[in-house]
C-alpha cells in the first residue's frame, strides 16, 4: 500500500552488521536483565497487592524489602527436592525447564530502545530482528504451553492433570484471539518485524489506532499468562496449585520463574505492538526518541502494563472454566473477526480514496476504532440481570409442589389442595431428590403433582 511505504525502518538492516560478540553480550545482558526484572516484579507485585489490601507487603529484607525476592529464591533452592514416585521422570524434570526456556526466548526480538552508541560502535538495543519477529513471539509462547501440559501430565496427579488440560484448552483458545488482534497490527504496519512495528507508531500508537485490538490483546494476555481472573490452570481454590501441585524446590521455582517472565514478556510485547514501544508519547521529537532515553520510556510503559496485571489481581475474582471458554470463543473470537473485517474494509477505502491518503490518513481509522470499541463494549458489557423479586401473594400456595411439604411464604394464603398425609410426602421425598443431572435444580415430584391435579 502506498501510504505504508515510508514505514520501513531505516535502522532495520543494522542487525546484520552486529559482530558476533556483540550479539553474545546482548544475549547475556538480556538474560541477566530478565532475571533481575523477575526479582523486581516479585517485590513490585507483593508491595502493590499489599497496598491494595491495607497491609505493608515485604519491607524487612533490604531497603524497602527489595531483597525479599532473593531470600525467597534462596529458600526455594535450599528446600528438599521431592519427586513423585510414579511420575514420568524425564518429562517431569524437563517440563519446567521447557517452560522457562520458551519464556526466555521472547525478549530476543523486543526493542528496548532505539540505536545507541558505545564509543564509535552503534547498535540498536535489541538482540535481533527479522521479518517475522512478531510471529516468532507467538510461536515461542506457544511452546511454553508444552511445559505446563507435560508437567501436569507427567506428575500423575488428578489436580495436576486437570490443571494441564485446562491450561492447554485455555492457551489454544486465547492464542487465537491474541493472534487475530496482532494481525491487525501487521495489516496497518505492513510488516511483522518488531522494530518496524515500533517505527510505524511514530505518528499514533496502535492502542488508539487499533483500540479494539488493543483491548482484546490485553484481555487475552491474562489468559496467556494464567493470571487472575483467568488463572484456571493453577487456581489455588479448586485445584490446589493446578499443574504445579507436585513440584517442589527448584523445579517449582522454574515454573514460578516462567510465570513471571511470561508476564514481563507479554507486557513488553504489548508495549512494542500497541503502546509505541520505546517512543515518547505524542511527539516525534528526535531528541526524545533516540539514544538512552528511549529505554526509560520503554520501561515505564512496560511496568505500567505490569501494574495493570497486579491491579487486576488485587481486584477481581476468578472465572469459571466454562464461562471463561464461552468468553473466549463466543465473544472475543467473533469480535476479533468482525473487527478484522471492518479494519480491512476501512484500509481498502483509505487505499481507494486518494484524499484520505494524505499525511493524516490514520485519523479516520482511529476514530473508527475508538467508536468501534465503544460500540463493542456497550453491546458486550455484561449487564447482570435484575435480581428476581417474587410477589408471593400472587403465587398459589401448593405445599407439596416441591415434593416435600413447605410452609406458606409471607403473603401466600391460598390453599390449593387439602392437606395430605405428611408421611406419604416424606416417603416420596427421597425419590424426588435424586439429582436430575442438571445443576442442582430439583424437579417437582411426579407423585405429588398427580395428586395435586386429581384434587383440582
Amino acid at each position, binding site marked *: 500500500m502506498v501510504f505504508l511505504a515510508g514505514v520501513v525502518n531505516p535502522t532495520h538492516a543494522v542487525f546484520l552488521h552486529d559482530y558476533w560478540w556483540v550479539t553474545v553480550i546482548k544475549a547475556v545482558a538480556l538474560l541477566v536483565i530478565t532475571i533481575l526484572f523477575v526479582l523486581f516484579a516479585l517485590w513490585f507485585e507483593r508491595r502493590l497487592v499489599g497496598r491494595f*489490601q491495607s497491609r505493608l507487603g515485604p519491607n524487612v529484607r533490604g531497603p524497602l524489602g527489595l531483597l525479599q525476592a532473593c531470600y525467597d529464591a534462596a529458600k526455594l533452592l535450599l528446600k528438599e527436592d521431592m519427586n513423585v514416585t510414579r511420575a514420568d521422570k524425564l518429562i517431569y524434570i524437563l517440563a519446567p525447564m521447557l517452560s522457562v526456556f520458551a519464556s526466555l526466548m521472547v525478549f530476543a526480538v523486543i526493542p528496548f530502545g532505539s540505536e545507541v552508541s558505545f564509543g564509535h560502535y552503534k547498535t540498536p538495543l535489541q538482540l535481533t530482528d527479522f521479518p517475522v519477529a512478531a510471529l516468532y513471539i507467538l510461536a515461542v509462547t506457544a511452546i511454553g504451553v508444552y511445559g505446563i501440559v507435560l508437567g501436569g501430565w507427567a506428575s500423575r496427579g488428578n489436580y495436576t492433570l486437570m490443571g494441564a488440560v485446562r491450561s492447554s484448552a485455555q492457551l489454544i483458545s486465547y492464542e487465537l484471539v491474541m493472534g487475530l488482534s496482532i494481525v491487525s497490527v501487521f495489516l496497518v504496519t505492513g510488516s511483522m518485524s518488531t522494530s518496524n512495528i515500533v517505527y510505524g507508531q511514530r505518528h499514533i500508537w496502535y492502542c488508539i489506532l487499533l483500540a479494539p485490538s488493543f483491548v482484546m490483546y490485553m484481555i487475552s494476555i491474562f489468559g496467556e499468562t494464567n493470571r487472575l481472573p483467568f488463572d484456571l490452570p493453577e487456581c489455588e481454590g479448586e485445584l*490446589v496449585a493446578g499443574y504445579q501441585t507436585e513440584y517442589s524446590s527448584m523445579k517449582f521455582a522454574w515454573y514460578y520463574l516462567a510465570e513471571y517472565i511470561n508476564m514481563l514478556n507479554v507486557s513488553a510485547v504489548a508495549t512494542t505492538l500497541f503502546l509505541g514501544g520505546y517512543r515518547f508519547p505524542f511527539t516525534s521529537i528526535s531528541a526524545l526518541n533516540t539514544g538512552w532515553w528511549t529505554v526509560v520510556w520503554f520501561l515505564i510503559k512496560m511496568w505500567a502494563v505490569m501494574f495493570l496485571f497486579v491491579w487486576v489481581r488485587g481486584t477481581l*475474582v476468578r472465572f469459571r472454566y466454562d464461562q471463561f471458554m464461552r468468553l473466549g470463543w463466543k465473544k472475543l473470537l467473533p469480535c476479533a473477526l468482525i473487527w478484522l473485517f471492518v479494519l480491512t474494509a476501512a484500509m481498502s477505502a483509505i487505499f481507494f480514496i486518494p484524499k484520505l491518503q494524505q499525511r493524516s490518513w490514520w485519523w479516520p481509522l482511529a476514530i473508527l476504532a475508538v467508536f468501534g470499541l465503544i460500540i463493542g463494549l456497550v453491546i458486550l458489557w455484561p449487564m447482570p440481570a435484575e435480581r428476581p423479586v417474587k410477589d408471593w401473594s400472587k403465587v398459589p400456595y401448593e405445599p407439596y409442589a416441591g415434593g416435600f411439604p413447605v410452609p406458606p411464604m409471607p403473603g401466600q394464603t391460598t390453599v390449593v389442595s387439602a392437606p395430605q398425609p405428611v408421611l406419604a410426602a416424606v416417603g416420596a421425598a427421597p425419590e424426588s*431428590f435424586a439429582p436430575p443431572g442438571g445443576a*442442582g435444580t430439583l424437579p417437582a415430584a411426579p407423585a405429588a403433582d398427580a395428586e395435586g391435579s386429581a384434587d383440582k
Partner: protein
Amino acid sequence: MTDTMPHAPAPAPDEVMDDSAFVLAHGGDWNDVASEVARLQEERIVISMGPQHPSTHGVLRLVLELDGEYVKETRVGLGFLHTGIEKTMEARSWNQAVTMVSRCDYVASMCNELTYCLAVDKLLGITDQIPERAQIIRVLIAELARVSSHLVALGSLGNELGGTTLMTVTFRGREYILNFFEAVTGQRMNNAFIRPGGVAHDIPDEAIDQLIADWDKIMLSIDDLDDLLTENPIFRGRCEGVGVLDLSACMALGLTGPILRSTGYPYDLRKVAPYSGYENYEFDVCTEDSCDVMGRYLVRLHEMRQSMRIVAQALAKLRATPGPIMVPDLRIAMPGQVTVGPDGQGQAPDHVKHILSDSMEGLIHHFKLVTEGFHVPPGQVFAQTEHPKGVQGVLAVSDGGTHPYRVHVRDAAFNNLQSLAAQTEGGTISDVIVCVASVDPVMGGVDR
C-alpha cells in the same frame, strides 16, 4: 458360624483392585461399588478434595467423582476436627463448660455461648430473672459476633474465588470487632464471656468508646465488600444459579440460616421465637428469592447491616439501662467486676471484703461455687438461637449435679453441609468450592 450370620462381602477380585483410583465407599455392598467404579474409571476421576485443601474451610473432606470438569457424585466426609467437645463438657462444671462450647464454632464463639447459656438458664429456671442489662449485653455481643462471622464467610468466599483482597477487606472489619471483644473480655476469640445467669462482667466504657470510634471502619469494610462483589459480573456469573436449593429442599434437608432465607422464607428465630429480648429491637429479616449462592451472599451482606442496626440500638439501651449484669443469686453468680489487684492478678475487692468480713453465707456460697460449681435441677431442655450459620440448638440434660449429664449441640453448619451433594452434583468442580463457601461450615462446630 452358619451362612445366615451376617458377614463381610467377599473381597473384590484383584483385577479390579490393581492400582485403580482410591475410592471411599462407606455403606453398600463393596462388590457393587467396586464393579461400578471399574466400569466408570475409564471416564471418571475420583478426587479426594480435602481434608487438606485450601478451600474446604479447615478439614472438610469431599470425595468427588468427576466426569471431566463436571461433578457426578459428591460425598462429604466429616469428623477430622472431632475434639470431643460435648464429652469434655461432661467433665466440667456448668460454668466451665462455657469455655468448651465457645470453641465449637470458633468464628462466632459468643453465639455458641449464648445458646448454651440460654439452655442452662432454662434448666435453672432463671430465664425471666436475667437482668435487663445482661440481656442487652448478650444481644450486643452476639450481633457483633454475627457480623464478624459473616465477614469471615464472605471474605473466604471471595478468597476461594481468587480475590485475596476480599479476604483482607473483610478481615479488616473483623479486626475492629475483635478489638472490641478484646477490650470487653480480654480475649479475641473463645471468650467464655456469656455465662449462665448473665454475663461474666460489665462492658467497660472505654470499650464502648472504642467501638463507636471504629464504627465507620466496620461499616466501611461491609461497604467495600458490597462495592467489590455485588455488581461484579464475574462474581455474579460464579454465584448466580449455582447451588440452587428451593424451599422444599431446605425443608427436606433441615437447612436453616442464610440458605433457608435465600429461598424467600423469612425464618429467623430472632423474630419467630425471640430470646434475650430481641423483640425489643427493630430489624428486618433479610431474604432473597433466588435460592442460589448469590442469594446467600446477599442475605449475609444485608444481615450484617441489620446486625449493626441492632448493635446501635443495643448501645443506646445500654447507656439508658444501668444495673446488675448477673442474677443476684450468689449460688450461681461468680463475682463480677474483676479488677487487676496490686499483685497483678484479677481480683474483686468488694466481693472479697463482703465474703471475708460481712457474710459467712456468702463465703460458703463462694467456696461451693468455686470448688464444685452450682447444682442444676434435674431435667432436660432444648434451647435454640439464630446463629450466623443457621439455627443452633443446645440440648442440655442435668441429673441434678454440678456437671452436665449430657450436652448436645445442634450445629447449623453440620445440617447445612448435608445439602452439599444436592447443591454440587451436576455442576462443575469450580462450583463445589462456591457451594461449600456458601454453606460457610466451621469445622470446629461441625465435628465438635
